[in-house]
């Protein structure tokens, strides 16, 4: 099974390609924008995190400043009922016991389309391409943390095991 290993750290705006910075500044965001540099198995990228209409939004850019995707954190009840049923049905069968930790909508489209839809807030009401769901669950009597990617209808497409950080220093 594929494993998810990520390392990310804060980075100042001056180090971000100007193309990415100007795109973000053209969106009417609320609060400050936090920039991160992310290293993972599929390559390195920049990520802008901000809030808009009380939603946590992150936009991922390639190293040359090309927009790759938009992710919006949501609650389970915001997933359409049919897709929600399919997702729960899959998780019920996959795990003997589980808890959903985080749900994000993932939108993939041209930079111009996504930014325009973010500007007029219409993206917040749209059905995404994918749902990325982090789950803490028990399978075959072993607890693990997993990330699943479901399509807009609730069909599971990709699963990865998340390797959690060591927590000995929090327990003892």
């Amino acid at each position: 099974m594929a494993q998810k290993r990520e390392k990310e750290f804060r980075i100042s705006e001056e180090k971000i390609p100007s193309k990415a910075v100007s795109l973000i500044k053209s969106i009417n965001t609320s609060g400050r924008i936090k920039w991160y540099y992310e290293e993972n198995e599929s390559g390195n990228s920049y990520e802008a995190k901000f809030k808009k209409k009380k939603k946590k939004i992150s936009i991922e850019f390639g190293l040359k400043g090309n927009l790759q995707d938009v992710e919006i954190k949501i609650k389970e009840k915001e997933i359409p009922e049919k897709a929600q049923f399919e997702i729960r049905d899959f998780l019920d069968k996959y795990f003997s016991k589980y808890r959903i930790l985080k749900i994000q909508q993932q939108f993939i489209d041209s930079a111009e389309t996504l930014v325009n839809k973010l500007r007029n807030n219409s993206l917040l009401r749209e059905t995404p391409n994918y749902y990325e769901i982090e789950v803490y669950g028990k399978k075959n009597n072993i607890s693990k943390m997993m990330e699943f990617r479901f399509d807009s209808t609730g069909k599971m497409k990709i699963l990865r095991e998340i390797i959690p950080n060591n927590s000995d220093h929090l327990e003892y």
Partner: protein
Amino acid sequence: MNTKIYFFCFFLLCCANFFGQSSYRYGILPAINLNTDLSKKWSVNFKTEARHIFQEKTDNVVNRRQEYIHTDFSLIAAKKVGIGNKLSVGFLARVRPNDIHKRFIQQYTLVRNYDGYRMAHRFASDQTLEIKNRVEVRFRYRTTFEIPLQGKSVDFKEFYLKVNHEILNRFENNSYDLGLRVIPLLGYKYTDKSKLEFGLDYRLNSFLKSGPNHTSWVSINWYLKI
């Protein structure tokens, strides 16, 4: 905001007491924590921690002295009992220059991941066998926050802030005492298996019945997974 005000008032109260009629002492508390997984469910923690005092004030007399107090050696076996939960039992030997105290430990820990921080809860009880067959029983609850200082989670070669807050209920010979501990620490994660922490371990005891007793330790912790 209310929480921040509460902590600020609590801190001021502690400071006011510290310079008042209370007794205090401070010193250093270095600790080494070794952890190893025995299987997918079982793990073991070995900890050794020494205490060395630099200064104390009792009965309004300030005494500057360099004195070794004791060294603790503990061994705790833990079993994963759920998602992020562990049930542990262990034994601690407190080695003093003239005697050894023995302590039995039981604890239940929960670690939870949140967006941008981690939080752990520890519910523990322990029984210490002291000289003349006296037994001290304590019930403890500790909350721990881990806040990354360079990203959304703590990766290797990154700093983090760890804050422990613990409430201790102590019973001995039909008497009860309440203790509070606040331990802010700055940590550095070399690798996923090695972390170093440095900070202040502040303890407040005996404030219910008599003059409060403050203890402050410079805390240095090394966590190593083998």
